[in-house]
């Protein structure tokens, strides 16, 4: 067994870390909270030039042919710096849909500009009544000759407010909850009948509520075979969950680091508060939880590429549950140990707390993944 990063991976890690420290700081993110996009297109372009966007795409699609472990390395560092650029939404969600279901033409049209950092994408899969189940699709796509007519509503579309292109799931057959009959459509944001409403999320990011009011999509905009998109959506949910775990590690590490620094400097009763055993033990509990979450996150980042979906689901669900248990604890205690200053908007620790709670809710919360873990054959 070997848990060490390769020399290339270590280099990637230190490159991203120093980039985040210099270019993608938390104070920059603070300023972007009031921006209608909420992230920087020029920074996105730089990230592309550094090769991070192309990391997981195969060379045949213009990427670098890396592994998910490489992506996890990037995400952990981005998480530590609260970097808001839409990596998960564009690359892992919409990008994977286009990669798996699209042919060379779609790759050329959508992945090439994404990898170059010229565009960003979104995947609209969630619906109000379906919670975390991507097969709960009430949106319909009714075939009419060479066209489809799409009607329905999608919620909390990550980067939907800024994406150049939105990949939308819609039902070409069957009923909500059926695996069969789900198709994906690639819609430019200015498509007639596509209404995109920007919303704010708790962590200072933006997303979109998307409604499709008789959107007419030519059949050429459908990705892959009709009705066969469910397995890819299933895979994307796992990629998203594993990504949240990796990003959450960075969030936990940063929150713990800030808290320990605070304990070492803040004085009360004439002493550094870090000398109080009650607080020391709390900090240790945070450290222990962060290490355990790291262990399952590593497992998930390896197993998310496992050809056996049951293996993939088990490992990813375990990691997402552990993230919820540990991430909540670490960031909640970070606030507690900072005292009153911890609940002010001016202090960064609250931003980490918020981001962690968003990560917990994305791609399946604790209860969802507990149930899924217990439904696998290995349980």
């Amino acid at each position, binding site marked *: *067994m*070997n*848990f*060490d*990063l390769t020399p290339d991976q270590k280099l990637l890690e230190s490159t991203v870390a120093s980039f985040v420290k210099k270019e993608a700081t938390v104070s920059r993110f603070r300023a972007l909270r009031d921006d209608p996009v909420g992230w920087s297109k020029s920074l996105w372009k730089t990230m592309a030039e550094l090769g991070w966007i192309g990391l997981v795409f195969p060379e045949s699609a213009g990427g670098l042919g890396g592994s998910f*472990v490489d992506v996890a390395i990037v995400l952990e560092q981005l998480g530590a710096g609260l970097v808001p650029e839409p990596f998960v939404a564009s690359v892992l969600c919409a990008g994977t849909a286009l990669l798996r279901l699209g042919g060379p033409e779609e790759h050329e049209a959508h992945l090439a500009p994404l990898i170059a950092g010229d565009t960003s994408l979104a995947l609209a899969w969630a619906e109000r009544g379906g919670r975390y189940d991507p097969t709960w699709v009430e949106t319909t796509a009714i075939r009419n000759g060479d066209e489809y007519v799409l009607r329905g509503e999608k919620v909390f579309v990550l980067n939907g407010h800024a994406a150049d292109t939105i990949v939308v799931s819609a039902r070409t057959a069957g009923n909500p909850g059926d695996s069969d009959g789900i198709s994906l459509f690639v819609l430019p944001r200015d498509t007639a009948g596509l209404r995109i409403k920007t919303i704010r999320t708790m962590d200072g990011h933006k997303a979109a509520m998307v409604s499709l009011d008789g959107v007419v999509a030519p059949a050429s905009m459908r990705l892959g075979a009709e009705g066969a998109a469910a397995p890819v959506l299933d895979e994307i949910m796992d990629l998203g969950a594993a990504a949240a775990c990796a990003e959450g590690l960075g969030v936990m590490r940063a929150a713990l680091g800030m808290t*320990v620094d605070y*304990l*070492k400097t803040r004085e009360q009763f004439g002493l*550094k508060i*870090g*000398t109080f*055993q009650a607080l*020391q*033990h709390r*900090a*240790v*509990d945070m*450290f*222990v939880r962060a*290490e*355990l*979450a790291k*262990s*399952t996150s*590593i*497992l998930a980042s*390896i197993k998310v590429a496992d050809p056996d979906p049951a293996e993939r689901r088990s490992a990813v*669900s*375990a990691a997402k*549950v*552990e993230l919820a*248990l540990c991430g909540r604890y670490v960031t909640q205690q970070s606030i507690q140990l900072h005292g009153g200053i911890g609940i002010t908007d001016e202090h960064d620790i609250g931003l980490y707390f918020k981001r962690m709670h968003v990560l917990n809710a994305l791609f399946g919360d604790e*209860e969802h993944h*507990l*149930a899924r*873990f*217990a439904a696998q054959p290995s*349980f």
Partner: protein
Amino acid sequence: MDLSFTPEQIAFRDEVRAWIREAMPPRIREKAAVDGHFEHDEIMAWHRILHAKGWVAPHWPAEWGGAGLDVTRRFILTEELELAGAPSLSPFGLMMVGPLILQFGTDAQRRRFLPKIVAGEEVWCQGYSEPNAGSDLASLKLSADPDGKGNYVLNGQKTWTTYAQYADWIFVLARTDKTAKKQSGISFFLVDMKTPGVTARPTLTTAGTPAFCDTFFENVVVPGENLVGPLHGGWTLAKALLGHERTYIAAVGMSTRVLRRVKRIAAATTERGVPLLEVPAWRSRIARLEIELLALKMTNYRALASAELGHAPGPESSILKIRGSEINQQCYELAMDLMGHDALSWHNEPGTIPEHEASVPPQFQYARAASIYGGSNEIQKNVIAKLILGLPS
């Protein structure tokens, strides 16, 4: 990164599994199947079986009767034994005093003591803790004074001496210099339990079994040749001992086995005809614990991979101690909760409650010791706070 065992390691695991199936005597197998309590003579019988196979001291060099296994094979062997529910061997000779004698003892001491430890001919116990000392090990008071004839005379008391009533020998930390700073006046002695003046008095645990003893020393004469390491240098040995075999401290194999039993109990226990294993709330609770155990297991693997590269176990192993004990306790707690009324049963005759549940209540009780012994979890937290997080004193 590569999180899998090599084909050679997997072949070794299969060999261990097959051997355990073959070698386990029927009586031990029956008890193992229901996780029953093993008596001292059963533990020693299993010791001799492992010794005959050459696996009793996997971490010792072959020259001294060890198996000379590398760190990963040692781990695999230990984990498979735990998974099979084999009796846990007494650790005091094999894991504690043996390695210390190997590292710090004289040749004469090695020749005298090591072969009998490996063969199971002499059973050891540990004399570290004292009344009122607890986790503050260095405040110990047992005195060892030279008698002018090359011997030392021991007076005082040890406590929590696990299984002293079965032991032939005890290793003790004793104060040889009362004027020195706490840690620097302590020496390490080997004491024959048959020496006049040594008395071991068993104490019942909350589990209802006599595990610990109070051990009294009244003018006990110990020959100078039984001093291990330098005079007043015992603290170094005490610390070295605490560092041994830290990768096994998480007891993942044991908790895995308890969790399997938890599922068996959940499947066999019904409420209004529905097995608890089918009830979502219980399923979630079991799943959560299984995930926590998986996180511990992967953390243990990270420590193992680091040991494979030759890194000494660092303060990170305190994580394994803290979570290993907590998760073990939670497993038993969940088993108790699932059992309902059956959890009320206490050492009753066979058949009172299902056989696979019978040992749960005492084991649930005894599991509370795991966060206390071997350096309480609070002490482990102090270690992490100081050595990893760098928090001020």
